[in-house]
C-alpha cells in the first residue's frame, strides 16, 4: 500500500465535494427517471420491473463505488459485498424457479386445474384465499395444541 503525502495513516484520500456533488446530481436525475418510467407502460409488467430495477441498480452502484469508496477500496471489501449479492441472487433465483415451475412437469392428464375438492362439513376449499385475516376473539387465539382456530373469513 502506497503512502500518500498528507495521510500518515496510510490511506489515500479520494474524491472530494465536487465529485460527490456530481454523483448526487446523477442520483437525483436517475430518481426522476425512475418516477417518470413508472408512468410509462413498456409492454409487460416484467419489463417494467426490470427497467425499474436496472435504474435502481445503477443508482446503487454509484452509491457503492463513490460514496462508499469501493472504487478505491481494497479488493477484499468489494468481494465481501459482491458475494452477499451473489448469495442473495441464488436465493431469489432458486426460490422463484421453484414457485414458477411447480406443476410444469405434470403428466398429460393433469390440466393444471385443481381437482374438485371433497365435499365436507368443514370448509377448507381454496375459496376465500387471500382475504385478510380477521382479528380473532381472545378465546379463539391459538391456545391448545392442534385446535388452533384458523382465521375465519
Amino acid at each position: 500500500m502506497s503512502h500518500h503525502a498528507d495521510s500518515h495513516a496510510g490511506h489515500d484520500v479520494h474524491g472530494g465535494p465536487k465529485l460527490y456533488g456530481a454523483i448526487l446530481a446523477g442520483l437525483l436525475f436517475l430518481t426522476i427517471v425512475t418516477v417518470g418510467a413508472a408512468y410509462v407502460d413498456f409492454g409487460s409488467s416484467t419489463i417494467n420491473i426490470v427497467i425499474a430495477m436496472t435504474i435502481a441498480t445503477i443508482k446503487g452502484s454509484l452509491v457503492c463505488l463513490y460514496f462508499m469508496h469501493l472504487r478505491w477500496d481494497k479488493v477484499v471489501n468489494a468481494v465481501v459485498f459482491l458475494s452477499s449479492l451473489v448469495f442473495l441472487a441464488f436465493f431469489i433465483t432458486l426460490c422463484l424457479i421453484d414457485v414458477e415451475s411447480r406443476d410444469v412437469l405434470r403428466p398429460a392428464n393433469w390440466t393444471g386445474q385443481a381437482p374438485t375438492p371433497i365435499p365436507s362439513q368443514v370448509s377448507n376449499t381454496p375459496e376465500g384465499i387471500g382475504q385478510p385475516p380477521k382479528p380473532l376473539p381472545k378465546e379463539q387465539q391459538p391456545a391448545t395444541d392442534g385446535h388452533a382456530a384458523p382465521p375465519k373469513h
Partner: protein
Amino acid sequence: MLPRQGSTIAGPMDDLYMFIFWLSVVFFIIIAGQVVWFGMKYRRRGPGEKTPHITHHLNLELAWSIIPLLLCIVLFFWGFDGYMKATVVPGDAMEIQVRAKRWQWEFEYPDGIRALNDLYIPVNKKIRMVMISDDVLHSFWVPEFRVKMDVLPNRYTDVWFESTIPGTYNLTCTEYCGKGHSTMRGSIKVLTPVEYEDFVKEGPPELKNMPLRELGELVYKSRGCESCHSLDGSRRDGPSWKGIFGKTEKFTDGTSAVVDENYIRESLMNPHSKIVATYEAVMPVYKGLLRDREVLGVIEYIKSLK
C-alpha cells in the same frame, strides 16, 4: 433391510437402493480398512521415528476426485429417472381423493363412497391419490409401495402407485403434525378384483361377517369414538357410553330424550341437533362415513355396556 415390494415402482427403486448400498460398502471398506490397517501397521514404535515427506500426489488426488464425481453423476441420473417414474402419474389411473386432518385420513372414491383411515383398493390397478390437508402439513407414506408425498393445506399434491400383491399395507404420516402424529396411521387393503367388487357393494370383507357387537367395538376403537367417549363412566369431551342406553339425557336447549336406537342413530348422522347439557358441540358428523351395519353395531355395542 427394506420392506416387501408392494408396488410396481418398488423393484426398480430397491435396485438403486441396493446399488448405493454396495457402493457404500465398498467405499467404507476401502476407507475404514486403510484407517485401521495404517493405525496398526504404522503405529509409533519409538520417539525418534522419521516419516517420509509426502506433500501431495496430483494423479492420485485427481483420481479420487473424478471417480466419485462420475459415480455421483450416475447416481443422479439413475435417481432422477426413478423419481420421474415414481411421480409422473400415468393417464389411466383411478383417482381417489384424500383429505388429511389431525389425525386421520379421509378417502373418497370416484363414486362417492367415503372411508376413514382404511382404504380398499383393487390390485394391479394404477391409483392416483389427490391429496389436501385440512390443517397443517402431513405426509402420505406407504413404505411397502415406496411412495411418499407431503399433504399441504390449500394446495393439491398427488401420488400414484400400482400395487402388485393383495394384502394389508401400513399408511403413516411422516410430516410432524402434533400430538397424534405417531398414531395418524391408516391401512391400505389391496383386494383381488373379485373382493374389490364385493367391497364396493357391501363393505370390507372382514367386517361383513363380524357379530354386530364386535363390529360396534371395532368402530368405537377405529373411528375416533374412543377419544371422546369413555367406557368406564369417566368424563371426556362427550358423554360416557357406560350405562347410557335407556337413560334420559337433558339437552342444552332444555329438552330431554331417552337414549334409544333412534337417538343413537341421530347422534351419529346429525350430532348437532341435540347436545347433551354441559357438553359442547364437537362431535363430528358420521353421515356417509359409517355403513348401516356399522351403525347397528354401535347401537348393539352401547346396549352391551351396562
